[in-house]
């Protein structure tokens, strides 16, 4: 038996509570489909995650149910959804932490593919293209010599911000993003903060200002900080956004 079967069997044998799932359904490819919620029931079990629960529902009750999981380990960012209204990763949400009735909906803001599946990939690629989320490199760098030294703490600080998994929770939890489609979100702003820290990125604050010095960028943030509350990787978004805003505001004063 795989882990899901092992855990589900354990739940059945130990007389666990009954969970009730209300799941958003809509298939844009089917002209007869209308948005609605379907209800499914399942026995809870210790160690059961929403990854296991949704797969059991699909296997046993509705083989057409759409959702996205890839790593099922909380590192790839595929499975963000609204769980009782709060954006978070489904794969590492233990059903034991949830009430008896669980309402699952797709992330807002992103294009709906079907049921709980949304197109975060397309949104993230457009954001990357807009903000140029990379270090500009010459085509032929010297690969034979010793690498350029970097301060160990600087490398670690960059990684702290690079841990973002582009799951989209911060965008779904953002007041501005819901109202203004072109807002780059905390995900985009955090990336700018990451590249600003990187000595290999030759962009100056004036260059970053060109990218995010507008209402679609750092000045669109209303400081509601839903992003910071819901980030599954606990990125320091509050601090980074505040810092970035100060730096960008300074460009308007000095530049």
């Amino acid at each position: 038996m795989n882990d899901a079967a092992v855990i589900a069997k354990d739940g059945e044998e130990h007389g666990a509570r009954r969970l009730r799932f209300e799941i958003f359904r809509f298939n844009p490819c089917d002209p007869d489909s209308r948005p609605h919620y379907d209800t499914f029931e399942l026995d809870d079990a210790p160690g059961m995650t929403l990854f296991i629960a949704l797969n059991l529902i699909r296997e046993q009750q509705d083989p057409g149910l759409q959702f996205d999981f890839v790593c099922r380990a909380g590192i790839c960012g595929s499975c963000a959804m609204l769980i009782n209204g709060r954006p978070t990763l489904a794969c590492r949400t233990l059903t034991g932490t949830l009430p008896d009735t669980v309402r699952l909906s797709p992330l807002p803001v992103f294009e709906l593919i079907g049921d709980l599946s949304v197109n975060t990939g397309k949104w993230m690629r457009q954001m990357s293209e807009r903000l140029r989320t990379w270090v500009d490199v010459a085509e032929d760098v010297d690969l034979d010599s010793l690498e350029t030294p970097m301060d160990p703490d600087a490398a670690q600080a960059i990684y702290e911000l690079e841990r973002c998994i582009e799951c989209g929770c911060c965008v779904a939890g953002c007041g501005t993003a819901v109202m203004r489609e072109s807002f780059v979100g905390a995900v985009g702003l955090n990336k700018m903060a990451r590249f600003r820290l990187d000595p290999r990125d030759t962009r100056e604050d004036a260059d970053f200002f060109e990218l995010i010095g507008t209402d679609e960028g750092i000045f669109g943030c209303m400081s509601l900080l839903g992003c910071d509350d819901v980030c599954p990787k606990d990125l320091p978004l509050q601090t980074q956004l505040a810092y970035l805003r100060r730096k960008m505001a300074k460009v308007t004063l000095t530049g």
Partner: protein
Amino acid sequence: MKVLHTDVLVIGGGLAGLRAAIAARRRGLEVTVLSIVPPKRSHSAAAQGGMQASLANCLKGFGDNEDVHFADTVRGSDWGADQAVARMFVHMAPKAIRELAHWGVPWNRVAPGAQSAVINGEKVELRERAEAAGLITARNFGGTAKWRACYVSDGTGHSMLYTISDQAIAASIPVHERIEALSLVHDGARCRGAIARNLMTGELLAYTAGATCIATGGFGRIYEVSTNAIINQGMGAAIALETGVAELGNMEAVQFHPTAIFPAGILVTEGCRGDGGLLLDRNEHRFMPDYEPEKAELASRDVVSRHMESHINKGLGATSRFGEHLWLDIRLLGEDHINTRLREVKEICQYFLGIDPARELIPVRPAQHYSMGGIRTDAHGQSGTLKGLFACGEAACWDLHGFNRLGGNSVAETVVAGMLVGESMADFCLGNEASVDTGLVREFFEREQAALDNLRRRGGAQRVTALNAAMQSAMTRNVGIYRDADGLQAAVAELGSLLERCADIGLQSGGHGADPELVLAYRLPRMLKLALCVAQGALNRTESRGAHCRLDFPERDDSQWLNRTLARWPAGAALPELRYEALDIMAMELPPAWRGYGSRDFIPHPQQAQRQREVEAATEQYGNRFERQEALMPYTHLLPERYRSHNARLFEDGQGAFNDPEAAGGAAE
């Protein structure tokens, strides 16, 4: 029929595919990448612990070089690897990591002065050299003579994938997301592209290409418990197999990782043990030194996994409500270390087990982890039997890993192979006119369309989820860590019968658009064909080598089995056709011997002693390691000219000799 043309079609948007795409794009070619998920969701992101590259910057890496990395890799492979490919790889790995350092990967760096570490259960102090300050550091991993696994905390694959993916965006390479290749278009001699399906709408598309590259990763999901992402169903290898022309190599070589959390099967990195973590049994006894006095927890993965399973079989496993397991203890590394170098491990323990690994033991048990086998290619990444078809990364078998891969060699292979295979594809495209026979494309397109229509309409009696579970169960029961003839025969029979039953799958859902049941229904027979290649290959190979362990043939048998299994699936056949490709012992730079861990017994090849004498003579004859290497097994001609120069190292002279001014190891040893 919608047809899209591109010079290079890359199927798979993980590290290997994206790096190959960038290489071909830089040569001026038009490149299109297909990916079944947004590329940053690829399984490459799950690589935690590190990338092997012999930089020799940190104290415990001093004296490391290509030769040491090469020997570790070949021993790890249990002499199944192609040694020329292993040589190319160890030469390229330092270049690949330095390129990624330019591109923005925040590799952890050497902090000079006294650093605390845990080695063999003891706290020690290492005094890093001032000259190495800020250079890329490394941690210890299994089966290696030096600390060589360069890392970004325990998010190494994540950082590498994000950096390369963003560089692909910078290079304006289109990635067609949620598009799955269903079959390769070919005329029996030359591959011309692929028929693909949009996983959001169900639309069928044709891609024609001068060169087609498969980089879809491994096939762990044919097993019940795997550390692999759920997308790792081996579809790239399967559609190559279904051409009936391309071959798969060494499919029976399947790796089981020692430390998957129990029962969820989620990986916690080898870096846990590399950094000093220990394996404990039900009595909290550290048992690995009892079996492996030399390497203990840091023998190769195949060896450690076998000892863990046999220790459990002796009744020494801990028990939980889900079954038996062992413990991984990283408490001795301390909270600071865990919070900075093992962050993902900490999160995984917290969310999936509800424990704090700085204070509690982690329940672990070996789980399927890596597919050494894959699409057989030459050293340039091209299929020998189907021209224009290339493969790289875990999906390929150019044969770096033989029968067991070393930890940290996987992400290193993805970027190295991407760099090299991307160049090969560019050479191929620039040297061959791409002509498109629309009749051929239409034939393949209509075949796929008809197969999907049939699957939707036929209303058969078999349920796809039940057949999938039966396949996974058969593989886990009979084609796992320990194998024998009875179990393997049973597996081949059962898998064959499951494949037959696939013809009678009926869908419960509509089969339209993104319908997940339809997707599994067309993937399952392809997975079963891969599973049959694994099981049949394992049944035929009457020896134990690397991760392939036969209880009824416990020794490595170089006299009979110093070869590579090649599997082909002729059209309409019920089983794969297997043939064997000999490994030339007289061309080996490192002739077979004991690995330095694991079983000491093996049946030698008749020419082993002769080759060993030749190698020893060369060692005495040549002044420096480069000359000796060149004399024994030339390989640089296989590399593009731009990548042929030597790699510089701190304290290494132009002759390749290492001279630490304070004497290697020094006071800290």
